[in-house]
């Protein structure tokens, strides 16, 4: 890529940082100073960006969901309510953070702190642009999976430490969901790794750029599975079961108030951004966009994709109801995992054929895409038909209209029995 490599070339913010580091190096001093400074710059930049994005998205989410709900949304604080997030943040800061008397105080305090870690640390390996990643690890994908799994421990700790039954139910649900969906997440990413042949996120982006394709075009099923699994991991609707508002009040953070609640609130956004960043990097071509990155800064492309993916989470939150925990877990074990097994087998075979046969990518990749899309659609439709539409008790229906007073129209579709039916 023909970068100018001058500090004012904003297509790669690394240029500016590099110029700054050179300047420091010229000043003399030990070797580690530029190293540490560059790391600090990265950390501060990511934190600042996260904070600004979060404030922006609080406003966007509230306005967008307001529109979805046929109301206006915040419009009083500042022009178009733009200062609403700041007002929210101030309110959270000023409110008393109540600790209930029987809470396990150290853990109660640790929960909100710990919940930040996975959301923040994930960004260390995300390439925001060409060379713009804090630490492009060899095992980036694995790192991402490992770190996001810490999330649920934080949730569990805060739920348990609250000494509240709703919180405990919430954390029980969180752990159960984590166990169910960690495998899904890993398998979804495994397909990507098999194709790209590397676990380094930068390499995966480069692979997508090299073959002029986006991973989701080749592996739609993996994208869907990953999106679902990460929605579970970060508790976004329709998988916000561990903080199900209508059932267990606020789940694991029922007892938190003031700024401690604010931590959870912020971490929810950060985790959302982190997951969107992973989706963008692995499935949507990262900071590349079919050559557009030559004209537009890569990090802008990356961020716009990231916001689009995050918008998806807002959208589902505004529209979808919530599944029950057993249905969600059954969905993982009885559906997604099986599909992903098939998917991995097919993907592995494809890569084997490709590498053994040494076919040109232009020929092979479209064929693979067609195969995988057909497979994904067929599997999903087949399952939906088999589990849903072929079974009368899963089908939507309309009321019977009658004039016949006193008649009985009781004809249960799904057999008898008064017990609730799980996802069989």
């Amino acid at each position, binding site marked *: 890529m023909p970068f100018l490599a001058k500090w004012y070339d904003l297509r790669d913010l690394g240029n500016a940082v590099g110029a700054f580091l050179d300047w420091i190096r010229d000043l003399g001093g030990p070797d580690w100073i530029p190293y540490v400074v560059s790391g600090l710059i990265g950390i501060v930049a990511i934190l600042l960006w996260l904070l600004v994005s979060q404030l922006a998205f609080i406003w966007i989410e509230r306005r967008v969901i307001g529109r979805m709900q046929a109301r206006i949304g915040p419009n009083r604080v500042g022009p178009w309510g733009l200062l609403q997030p700041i007002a929210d943040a101030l309110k959270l800061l000023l409110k008393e953070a109540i600790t209930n008397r029987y809470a396990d105080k150290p853990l109660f305090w640790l929960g909100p702190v710990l919940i930040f870690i996975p959301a923040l640390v994930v960004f260390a390996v995300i390439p925001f642009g060409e060379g713009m990643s804090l630490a492009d690890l060899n095992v980036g994908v694995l790192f991402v999976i490992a770190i996001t799994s810490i999330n649920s421990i934080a949730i569990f700790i805060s739920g348990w430490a609250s000494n509240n*039954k709703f919180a405990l*139910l919430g954390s029980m649900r969180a752990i159960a969901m984590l166990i169910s969906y960690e495998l899904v997440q890993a398998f979804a990413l495994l397909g990507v790794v098999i194709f790209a042949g590397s676990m380094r996120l930068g390499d995966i982006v480069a692979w997508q750029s090299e073959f002029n394709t986006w991973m989701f075009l080749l592996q739609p099923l993996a994208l869907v599975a990953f999106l679902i699994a990460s929605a579970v991991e970060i508790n976004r609707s329709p998988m916000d079961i561990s903080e199900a508002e*209508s059932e267990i009040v606020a789940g694991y953070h029922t007892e938190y108030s003031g700024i401690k609640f604010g931590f959870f609130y912020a971490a929810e956004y950060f985790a959302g951004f982190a997951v969107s960043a992973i989706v963008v990097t692995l499935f949507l071509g990262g900071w590349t966009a079919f050559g557009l990155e030559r004209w537009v800064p890569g990090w802008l492309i990356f961020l716009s994709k990231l916001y689009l993916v995050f918008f998806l989470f807002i959208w589902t939150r505004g529209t979808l109801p*919530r599944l*029950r*925990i057993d249905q969600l877990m059954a969905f993982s074990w009885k559906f997604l995992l099986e599909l992903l097994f098939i998917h991995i087998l097919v993907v592995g075979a494809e890569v084997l054929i490709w590498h053994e046969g040494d076919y040109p990518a232009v020929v092979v990749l479209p064929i693979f895409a067609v195969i995988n899309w057909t497979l994904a659609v067929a599997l999903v439709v087949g399952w939906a038909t088999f589990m849903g539409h072929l079974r009368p008790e899963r089908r939507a229906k309309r009321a019977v209209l009658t004039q016949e007073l006193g008649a009985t*129209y009781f004809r249960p579709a799904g057999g*008898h029995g008064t017990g609730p039916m799980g996802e069989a």
Partner: protein
Amino acid sequence: MSMKTEPFVVNIGPQHPSTHGVFRMRLTLDGERIIDADMVIGYLHRSMEKLAEERSYTQNIPFTDRTDYVAAMTGNLAYVLAVEKLCGIEPPERASWLRVIMSELQRFASHSMAVGVFANDCGTWQTPVMHMFREREKILDLFEMACGARLTTNYMRIGGVSRDVPPEFRPALRKLLDELPMRMGEYEDLLLENEIIVARSRGIGVLTPEVAINCSLSGPMLRGSGVAWDIRKADPYCVYDKLEFDICVGTDGDAYDRFLVRLAEMRQSIHILEQCLEMMPEGPVHSQITTATAQPGGQPSAPLTIRVPAGEAYGRIESPRGELGFYIVSDGGPAPYRFHIRSPSYINLTPLRELAIGATVADAIVILGSIDIVVGEIDR
């Protein structure tokens, strides 16, 4: 070897997002399964039945607003019908039509709340309920036009209604009726066909017709179990015998069917309102305008006191939640001797324990949402 877990008592309520007021369910859980359930109510008990014994018959009408505060009009109507039955007053025809219009508008408003809140209980984040509020607001605007109040209407009077609707009421209702069928189509498509709502509510809380009848359930609870019983058809009050509409029944008796019946009844209400707009005659709206204190608009108001002969009467109507009955015993005095409200929300809770046992917490919320309680009516 079997897993032994400790039972775990959780209080859902009295302050809880999904108990629709100050209702409390005391659930004993084994993990997420409910092994015992009990309800604790009375947080909103205002002892209306005692209070009513010290107030005149007309003074009691505002109480009936405040029993079922989501459907004040039908509360009014049931009470005035019971008193009219007791003293043999026949309201003028226009008043009857207005009563039907108001109670059908109220049914639509109340059902829209029930449907929206049910979707909320299934876990949507406020969206359906907000859309439903939009329609309800328009209906409340109409109420405001008719009687000046939106929620606690106090509109019906013994012998008629408190005042005629203003001339702008008719075009406003027309405009609303033109809009509602399109909205209803939207709701049916988005809510009834929603996979997750189907998954969450079908097969949950199944009531067979035998159980439903034996438990004295009424309204959408009974019709959801497939019993075609609607007091508007069975014992037509006001002018329901002149109107054409269908009874909406479900076939499975689960939470989904109760939800379904409510949505279908909203369509029927629109149908009834259409007919009312066409057929409503002109004329007086109160049978005995006597001690008229002329009001600013020149309309005389209904009498404030009324003598009721000794006796007793049980008046029942089909309120949005079921059979709303008023049992009134009079000793000939200015106030009722006994004033009993047969409140459908309360009696519909009879099978709650059986429905909840064996379900999960999430199901219990859905079941409670499908019963559609109003705590003001439970506790009275």
